[in-house]
């Protein structure tokens, strides 16, 4: 039976059989963990995964703005040779470009603005602007043949997060909570944090972590990165935890009665969220208490807790992962380098390079990397053609990397043409990426659907999507 339905049936049975009194049992259900609460967050696939899962959770390091593949992961010596010379129109004629309008024959190549070096035992060429990410070259699998459909930030993020360019579809994290449930009922299963510093602070709409047509309790919850991650976790003065527990149980009972009269799925979500809120009042202070972190860990990340930096968010991401949060998404919003890409890359590197590598190493040291999937990348790439001293948005090709959870470290998959303009071999669409992510979580993307408006909706859409098997160690 659909667990959501089962849940609502249980609720009705409970209502019919009780005289609506707040017994001590009800209070206990808030203070402790009982079966009803646990089942509320259980996923539809919880006991019937399609494959043995490699990943239990995901940390998505979203580099918002469109990172240049040509200054990060895609080594293009030919582009360096053509720098300052005309971009052959055979590449660009008839193609969609964002801001580089005008005569195509006037477009000029811009050589890679940072040197590439060999890193790791795998010897992969990577940008020297990110030496720390270079130091984990053997942990990560790079895909150099990503392509997408949307040339502007917001729709491109929407596509990356939901597999659709139309707003209103569930985001990846919501799909995962729906399918796999949460491993904790003390914290939201899907947490999003944005960081500040290091660029233009690209706007990111909360639509990006919305649950779309899935029940709204599966939506992402945004924590503040600066100062307190969650406000109002303390009770008002003169109110003890027991007082607050009684109050909450009364509110939820009243809402259950409403749910009996009124057909509104938001009521069930509201009840679940009040239970979650009550638990967060103790779990969040614990999450934030970094006094237990050794000094060298803080130094490895470069984190000063509470400063709102990407580094602090990385540390928090590890602590969230340890506490069973299913999907953690960190946005760094400084990658839209229309101008000054050389300096821009240096700036973002200062903000993300050290912390990203520290996160991977820290997870590995704790034995968590084997079941944590890390995804690093943006919504699209950037043109090999110059836009002044920078690069324009580009959807024909971009790069990203993944690590952990059955990803074969040291692999490089797919390639672009000699100038890094278009995919030359083994193209990977956003849907292919989603299919691969789902596979690592034990889910066959074909069989993971949600019925809505008479259709079986999938994260991977209706066109065929394929799992990128060559980057997986389990195939």
């Amino acid at each position, binding site marked *: 039976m659909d667990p959501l339905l089962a849940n609502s049936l249980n609720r009705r049975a409970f209502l019919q059989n009780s005289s609506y009194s707040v017994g001590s049992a009800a209070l206990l259900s808030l203070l402790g963990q009982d079966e009803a609460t646990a089942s509320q967050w259980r996923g539809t696939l919880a006991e019937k995964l399609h494959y043995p899962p490699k990943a239990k959770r995901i940390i998505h390091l979203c580099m918002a703005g469109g990172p240049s593949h040509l200054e990060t992961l895609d080594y293009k010596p030919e582009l360096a040779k053509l720098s300052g010379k005309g971009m052959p129109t055979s590449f660009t004629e008839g193609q969609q470009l964002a801001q580089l309008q005008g*005569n195509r024959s006037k477009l000029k190549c811009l050589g890679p603005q940072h040197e590439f070096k060999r890193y790791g035992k795998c010897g992969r060429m990577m940008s020297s602007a990110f030496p720390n990410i270079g130091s984990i070259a053997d942990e990560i699998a790079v895909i150099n043949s990503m392509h997408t459909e949307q040339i502007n930030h917001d729709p491109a993020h929407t596509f990356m997060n939901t597999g659709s360019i139309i707003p209103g579809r569930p985001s990846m994290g919501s799909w995962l909570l729906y399918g796999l449930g949460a491993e904790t009922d003390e914290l939201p299963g899907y947490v999003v944090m944005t960081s500040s510093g290091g660029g233009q602070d690209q706007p990111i709409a909360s639509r990006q972590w919305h649950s779309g047509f899935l029940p709204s309790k599966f939506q992402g919850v945004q924590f503040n990165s600066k100062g307190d991650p969650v406000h109002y976790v303390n009770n008002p003065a*003169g109110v003890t935890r027991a007082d607050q527990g009684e109050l909450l149980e009364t*509110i939820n009972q009243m809402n259950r009665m409403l749910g009996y009269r009124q057909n509104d799925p938001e009521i069930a979500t509201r009840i679940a969220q*009040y239970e979650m809120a009550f638990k967060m009042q103790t779990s969040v202070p614990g999450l934030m208490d970094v006094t237990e972190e050794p000094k060298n860990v803080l130094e490895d990340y470069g984190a000063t807790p509470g400063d709102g930096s990407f580094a602090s968010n990385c540390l928090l991401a590890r602590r969230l992962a340890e506490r069973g949060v299913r999907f953690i998404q960190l946005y760094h919003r400084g990658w839209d380098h229309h101008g000054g890409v050389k300096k821009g890359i240096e700036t973002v590197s200062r903000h993300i390079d050290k912390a990203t590598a520290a996160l991977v190493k820290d997870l590995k040291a704790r034995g968590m990397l084997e079941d944590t999937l890390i995804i690093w990348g943006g919504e699209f790439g950037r043109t090999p053609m110059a836009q002044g001293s920078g690069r324009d948005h580009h959807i024909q090709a971009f790069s990203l990397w993944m690590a952990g959870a059955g990803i074969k470290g040291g692999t490089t998959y797919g390639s672009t043409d000699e100038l890094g303009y278009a995919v030359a071999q083994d193209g990977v669409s956003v849907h292919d990426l989603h299919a691969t992510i789902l596979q690592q979580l034990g889910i066959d993307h074909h069989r993971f659907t949600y019925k809505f408006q008479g259709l079986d909706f999938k994260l991977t859409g209706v066109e065929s999507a394929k799992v990128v098997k060559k980057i997986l160690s389990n195939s």
Partner: protein
Amino acid sequence: MAPARKKIAELIKQEEHLKTNTRSTLVTLSTVPRTIKLLPRGDWTDDSGEVLLPAAPEFLSSEGQPSKERLTRLDLAEWITARENPLTARAFTNRVWALFFGTGLSRDLQDLGNQGQWPTHPELLDWLSVEFVESGWDVKHLVKLIITSKAYRQSSNASPQLMEEDPYNNLYARQNSRRLPAEFIRDNALAVSGLLNPQLGGASARPYQPAGYYAQLNFPKRKYQQHNDENQYRRGLYMHWQRSFLHPMLAAFDAPAREECTAARESSNTPLQALNQLNDPTFVEAARVFATELVAKEKAIKPRLQVAFKRLLNRPPSGEEETLLTELFNKQIKRYRSAPDDAKKLIAIGLALPPEKVDPVDLAATTTVTRALLNLQETITRY
């Protein structure tokens, strides 16, 4: 000479006074318009194109094309509201409809064009738009038409079958239930308690905010100072808007940061909202002031509940609800009787002072009950 000198001195003094005491205002001076040329394929470095005069985009209309005289902003205004231009009235009518139904007749409020969505009821949208224009762009007329309609007055309580068959309510066989927007949730709590200051206009209001929330704010560093007068209780509409550090209550209930134009808000349902309504001093204080009035009016809990339900939910409590809340009240009386200092702490939250002659235990226990009521889904939702 003396009178002349005296007059000069007076005039100088007057000039100084005017310079320091007169409010300055922004004034737009009409200047010679820039020469605008056609940019071949949008290339702004190419100035070979012909010189152009202001005109409406050709693809939109054959009207408003260059005339002998240079067109002005008044011409633009007239073009926007011309009878031949249906778009303005349609876009406006669609947004007014959305205020009362949660979604527009065309679901995409920000784009009625090619990339938007076809209206569910195109004829109705057209009819309302024409009615709006012919009434002399009378917004009240439009609102009256909508809220007296059968469609608007329907119950939102639909059968599960209807919900499944028509999840987006394209058929309007029911009303949509809607969670109140952030500002309304605040206004509602303040209005119910009698704290609301309905003053129109003026400078922004600064309600309570978690201490140190602006500690990370830079360029320049600033410290948040809440209002300690009646400005504390102004409507959400007038709350101080710090875009990068939006008030946590506004952020939790999906108010936009105003960094970009937002025609339609999301409506989320998160634990952060619960924490806000439970623990934000604005809501705790509103609950206590509401409770103060109940305590003053009625001696026993049951009549208090009658008053509270009527005010807050516009209906009497059911027997079960009465039992449940009375039980909460009795437990809280017991608990605060054993710890009267806690009762005093709870009723001291906020600027509004509790009355001197009140029994703190009774008021604290009643406050717990009104906190429960302010937190209800039914309180923050239009069904």
